């Protein structure tokens, strides 16, 4: 490691390169055909302590060995991945493979301008890259064009967490319908579930939601239960935004009723989302509507506090049946971004095949286990088909565990998840996990897909986030009683008039094309 080069050398360089810097304005210089003995990758770093995997580390070496290439991976802290991606797109040296965290405008525009390979129809030739679920592949596309190998995620994650000890005390059972949800919340509020003789509890806990409309907030989930579309829906053969449906209104009347009766935390508009666990854990509120992994977080907290009975505090179920007697489940999009391949760094079809072959290897069963679990016998053991992490007192084991968290980000599992499920030790954890698998599986049948997932409209890219903020704000204002139903409808009209109508038109135009 040469910490600092000779200062005068640097200044000489400065002086010599200044003219160069002034004339070159980042126009594309054609780079030589990429040397595909090494593969360059840019990926977000999600390791817990921000230590990026070392190049001479065991994991890095093993992944290189498996892929048959030398790997040069640029790990970028997840918090600012977008900033770094913009700068990288502007430079003429794109990595050959780039993890893209979803259809961000910068990516969409660059892809449409020809920065990345169009992989439509190309992936089926690779058994491990062939999409397990064609709908998800379509979802990840831009108007039907596939610009990356999607990174698979569970298609169903919605769950309702309920304080089990409160249910037992009041002689109630887990809610199955939205009516049950109301009744349980009412009982949690009025029948003193914590037995302290005071009416100081409430039912549902909702935090300040950072995202806009249709971002898996508890409101979005409840609306779907009531039969409203998930984001966009087809009504009379045309795409309509979900908030312009009678079910949307009905669902929000329901939530508003709960809020007015005090069944929801009064600070639902401002509760720090990082503190969502607190009221549940401390016994102020008893119900959370979120993804099922929050159940694990709650278990961890209760385990620290009451190691003997920690399993008796949290119960969990999936989506609830709506007022129409049918179940409409809120799914995920099924993927989390994708691996896109630069056309500039990988200029020929032959090289593209080479890159895809590597990705194919990484997505094999062997590759998935390496990327998602690590080394069997070293940092985890297999028990009943689950991966049990070894307690990490040995720094070498801890390094592997940490590196695995990072390397999981370059895995795709497009062909389905073949690695082991990591499970923390403990009977309650195992029971909770098995329950969770069961209701997710059951809910998949009633999933309400967003038919517009694959569609990217120009106006949506330019104005969508801002416009959807109008809806998210209006919804909260309606629930807080600051505007009435007429006010809510007026805000929806404002969405249309400020560019929403244009989005609806563009969406429908594309939708007609894709449906063919």
């Amino acid at each position: 490691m040469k910490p600092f080069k000779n200062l005068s050398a640097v200044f000489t360089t400065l002086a010599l390169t200044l003219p160069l810097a002034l004339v070159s304005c980042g126009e594309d210089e054609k780079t030589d055909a990429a040397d595909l003995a090494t593969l360059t990758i840019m990926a977000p770093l999600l390791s817990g302590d921000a230590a990026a995997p070392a190049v001479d580390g065991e994991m890095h070496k093993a992944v290189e060995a498996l892929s048959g290439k030398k790997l040069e991976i640029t790990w970028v802290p997840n918090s600012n991945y977008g900033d770094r991606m913009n700068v990288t797109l502007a430079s003429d040296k794109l990595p050959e493979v780039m993890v893209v965290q979803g259809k961000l405008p910068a990516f969409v525009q660059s892809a449409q301008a020809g920065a990345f390979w169009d992989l439509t129809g190309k992936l089926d030739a690779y058994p491990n890259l062939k999409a397990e679920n064609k709908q998800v592949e379509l979802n990840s596309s831009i108007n039907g064009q596939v610009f990356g190998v999607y990174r698979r995620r569970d298609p169903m994650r919605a769950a309702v967490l309920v304080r089990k000890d409160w249910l037992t005390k009041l002689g109630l059972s887990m809610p199955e319908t939205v009516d049950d949800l109301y009744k349980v919340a009412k009982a949690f509020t009025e029948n003193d579930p914590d037995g302290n003789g005071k009416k100081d509890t409430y039912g549902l806990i909702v935090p300040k939601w950072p995202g806009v409309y249709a971002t898996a907030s508890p409101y979005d989930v409840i609306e779907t239960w009531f039969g409203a579309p998930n984001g966009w829906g087809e009504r009379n053969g045309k795409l309509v935004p979900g908030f312009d449906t009678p079910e949307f209104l009905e669902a929000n009347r329901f939530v508003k009723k709960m809020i007015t009766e005090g069944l929801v935390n009064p600070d639902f508009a401002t509760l720090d989302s990082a503190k969502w666990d607190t009221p549940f854990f401390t016994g102020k509120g008893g119900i959370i509507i979120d993804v099922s992994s929050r159940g694990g977080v709650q278990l961890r907290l209760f385990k620290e506090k009451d190691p003997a009975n920690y399993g008796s505090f949290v119960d969990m179920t999936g989506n609830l049946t709506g007022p129409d007697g049918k179940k409409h489940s809120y799914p995920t999009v099924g993927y989390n971004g994708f691996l896109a391949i630069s056309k500039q760094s990988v200029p020929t079809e032959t090289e593209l095949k080479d890159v895809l072959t590597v990705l194919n290897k990484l997505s094999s069963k062997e590759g998935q286990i390496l990327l998602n679990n690590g080394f069997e016998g070293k940092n985890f053991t297999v028990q009943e088909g689950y991966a049990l992490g070894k307690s990490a007192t040995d720094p070498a084991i801890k390094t592997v565990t940490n590196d695995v968290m990072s390397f999981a980000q370059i895995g795709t599992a497009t062909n389905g998840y073949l690695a082991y499920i990591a499970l923390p030790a403990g009977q309650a954890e195992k029971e909770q996990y098995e329950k969770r698998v069961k209701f997710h599986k059951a809910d998949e049948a009633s999933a309400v897909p967003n038919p517009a997932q694959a569609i990217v409209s120009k106006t949506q890219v330019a104005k969508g986030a801002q416009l959807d903020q109008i809806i998210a704000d209006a919804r909260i204002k309606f629930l807080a009683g600051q505007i009435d139903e007429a006010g809510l409808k007026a805000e929806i009209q404002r969405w249309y008039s400020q560019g929403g109508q244009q989005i609806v038109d563009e969406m429908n135009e594309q939708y007609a094309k894709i449906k063919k």
Partner: protein
Amino acid sequence: MAVNRSTPAGRVFDAVNVVVLVALAVVTILPFIYVTAGSFAKESELAERSFFLWPREVVTDTYRYIFSTDTFLRSLIVTIAVTAVGMIIQVLLTFTMAYPLAKRHLPGRNLLLNLVIFTMVFSGGLIPTYLIVRELGLLDTYWALILPLAINPFYLIIVKNFFQELPEELQEAAQIDGCTELGVFWRIVLPLSKPIIATMGLFYAVAIWNDFMSPLLYIDDSTKWTLQMFVRQVTVSSDMANTLGQIDPNYIPPEQGLKFSVIVVATVPILLLYPFLQRHFAKGILIGSVKG
């Protein structure tokens, strides 16, 4: 400043002053004590209690976790080295540029000052700067963390104004005694500038220490990362990342206690700089005696 301390009004003022300032100090330091206490608390206690200054049960898991690999120590050393070298270069560049600009009769001075002022509000932005750094071959070197921010125009102006207030007679006298301009700068002006050097040293050091955008953009090799990359990675609000749709649904955010300990270990070293520099402020009295 032992003045009028015996008058009753003076004593009342002193008492009130002490109370006000101590209260201010307490208000500013309490949250940091909470962060420190939280770094030694169990996760369940952090979820349960809203604000506390001492954990019910002291645990050091998070610290042991941080120090269990050499990553943290390595980046601590990197950060200290970059901060020290960077601060010296930046102070040097700032002072050498500010001194000529303080001379009222320097030809072209007004033009140069206006050019400097202009950069206070106008900048080319992230991407062009990145391209320049790349053209200079500074990517993945520590120089990328120092040189692009070598002179802060605000600090330059502050130093320039400080120089302007130094007594001209003194410098002229020195010149008559046969000193060159450089000699005056080195032997007369700089020794008189200790408080402002200390202040600027602190400002620059803290800026480098807290900078996370430069390592994020310019450094690929993670063995060269500074501490702020840790801090950012662990503490950045999930709120913001969530808005951008950047949260991986499989991602479990780091524990609150870990966030707090990373903040503590990344903040304490730089906090120690100020008390160390404080004594130089007192030495500035010199200027006064020269003036008088």
